[in-house]
């Protein structure tokens, strides 16, 4: 089965943060325009647009996101299909995967993916209710569970069963903040100490504020193109070597384990297999650490450590100059987590890194990147492997 190859040929993103002065549509257009400029293409060359978004219907009262992005990107009269992809916090990875499949199938040569989330248009605790819509509303959220509460229950059991100290969780956040301090697009560019991370205000015990990704506004966009297009135009793209997605039960209480993410295990195995690579070949990873505990669970479920052993990686190995650099962007904790943009933003980081243009957070001579984007508490996982510059 020889199919077309797919390349990222351009990427752009807004700053992540509390961007009071910018609207949902302005964020999407800003990121899209940067990606188009970065790719050096004309917007009329785009054949399909996949918009990635999770919560605009409830936060901003706006659905029909595909049309919104297409319209205000000025390409309404190009009349191309513009569809929104939704898989909660994995929307971004899922949308790039659709672009990858569209190019791989041979149907299209130039596809745009734009991920956006505008979360600060809701004040106070209302956002906790809205983000709880990525859970099972009737049998988790209805009873008082929140995303943080479910992550916290995984954390408590995990820490007890594997004798993992609280500090190990905090080290994920310390690493994220350190990397984000070198990323101008990150929401939080302040470094934090282990002591600060351990002693922060409780959110859902044992997790505290420094274990939890923030409420973020932001947008990210990439252009995916076929081998034919790349060769014809002499463009240096970054190849998407493989793409895999997997699903698990929606609610944590229905899963086989509360601290093993089967969707991540399966998607990672499939993505590495399809790329014919091993973890030893991965130069750096961007992982979906919406909560610090997920960072540890994911390192294990991606295959970097046995279950319960990620604590041995979080102090040194995951550092920017460590053996397995994790989240050079600053990750979800510090770069930020604008749901629909998060997964696309991972591609922006990987593209920038693999092109060698990440400045002071540049991973040394990277060859391959692993991107892990997860929906909700682990019901969806999307894993991509990106290759060297072609």
């Amino acid at each position, binding site marked *: 089965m020889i199919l077309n190859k797919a390349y990222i040929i351009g990427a752009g993103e807004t700053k992540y943060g509390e961007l009071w002065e910018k609207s949902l549509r302005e964020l999407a257009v800003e990121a899209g325009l940067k990606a188009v400029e970065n790719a050096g293409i004309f917007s009329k060359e785009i054949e399909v647009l996949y918009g990635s978004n999770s919560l605009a219907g409830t936060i901003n009262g706006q659905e029909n996101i595909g049309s919104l992005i297409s319209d205000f990107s000025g390409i309404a009269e190009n009349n191309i299909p513009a569809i929104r992809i939704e898989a909660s916090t994995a929307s971004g990875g899922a949308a790039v995967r659709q672009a990858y499949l569209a190019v791989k199938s041979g149907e299209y040569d130039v596809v745009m993916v734009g991920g956006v989330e505008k979360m600060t248009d809701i004040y106070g*605790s209302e956002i906790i209710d809205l983000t709880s819509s990525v859970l099972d509303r009737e049998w988790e959220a*209805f*009873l008082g569970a929140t995303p943080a*509460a479910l992550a916290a229950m995984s954390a*408590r059991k995990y820490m007890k069963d594997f004798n993992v100290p609280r500090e190990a969780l905090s080290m994920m956040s310390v690493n994220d903040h350190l990397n984000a301090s070198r990323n101008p697009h990150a929401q939080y560019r302040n470094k934090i100490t282990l002591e600060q991370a351990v002693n922060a205000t*409780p959110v859902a015990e044992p997790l505290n504020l420094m274990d939890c990704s923030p409420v973020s506004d932001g947008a990210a966009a990439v252009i995916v193109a076929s081998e034919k297009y790349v060769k014809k135009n002499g463009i240096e793209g970054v190849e998407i070597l493989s793409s895999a997605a997997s699903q698990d039960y929606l609610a944590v209480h*229905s899963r086989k384990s509360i601290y093993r993410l089967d969707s991540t295990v399966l998607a990672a195995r499939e993505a590495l297999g399809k790329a014919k690579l091993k973890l030893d070949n991965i130069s750096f990873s961007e992982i979906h650490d919406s909560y610090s505990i997920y960072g540890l669970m994911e390192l294990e479920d991606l295959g970097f450590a046995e279950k319960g052993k990620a604590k041995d990686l979080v102090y040194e190995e995951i550092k920017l100059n460590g053996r397995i650099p994790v989240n050079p962007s600053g990750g979800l904790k510090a770069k930020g987590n604008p749901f629909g943009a998060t997964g696309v933003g991972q591609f922006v980081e990987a593209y920038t890194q693999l092109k060698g243009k990440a400045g002071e957070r540049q991973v040394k001579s990277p060859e391959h990147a692993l991107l892990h984007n997860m929906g909700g508490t682990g019901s969806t996982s999307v894993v991509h492997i990106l290759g060297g510059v072609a």
Partner: protein
Amino acid sequence: MGELSRFWRESEHRYRLIGTKCGNCSVTYFPPRDICPKCHRESIGKMKPVQLQGKGEIISYTIVHDAPPRFIRQRPYFMALIKLDEGPTITGQIVDCDADEVDIGKRVRTVFRKVAEEGKSGIIEYGYKFVVDQ
């Protein structure tokens, strides 16, 4: 947050803890399902309502401080994952206890309680919560 029918239609499950049992493999599920994820089409038409006793043990728990508007007045509150004696694990609050009474492995049982209310004039939502078995 929703129309009355959204809550009313789940009443028997939330008030009386009615789950389903697969007539093909005999596995019990809660919340109720129309299709058994193990037996697939073999289970169609064989998923029967089953009364659960509401007794089980705490798999894990948390104390929630950052709560959505419906639960703000209850914070901080215990949420737990509870493995019921009939097999399924369910999510629910633990109430009427001191902090040191709650732990992984503790036995609990369901009680019928007000879960939340939709403002002063909105509907009152009821359902199951858990208390620690002494």
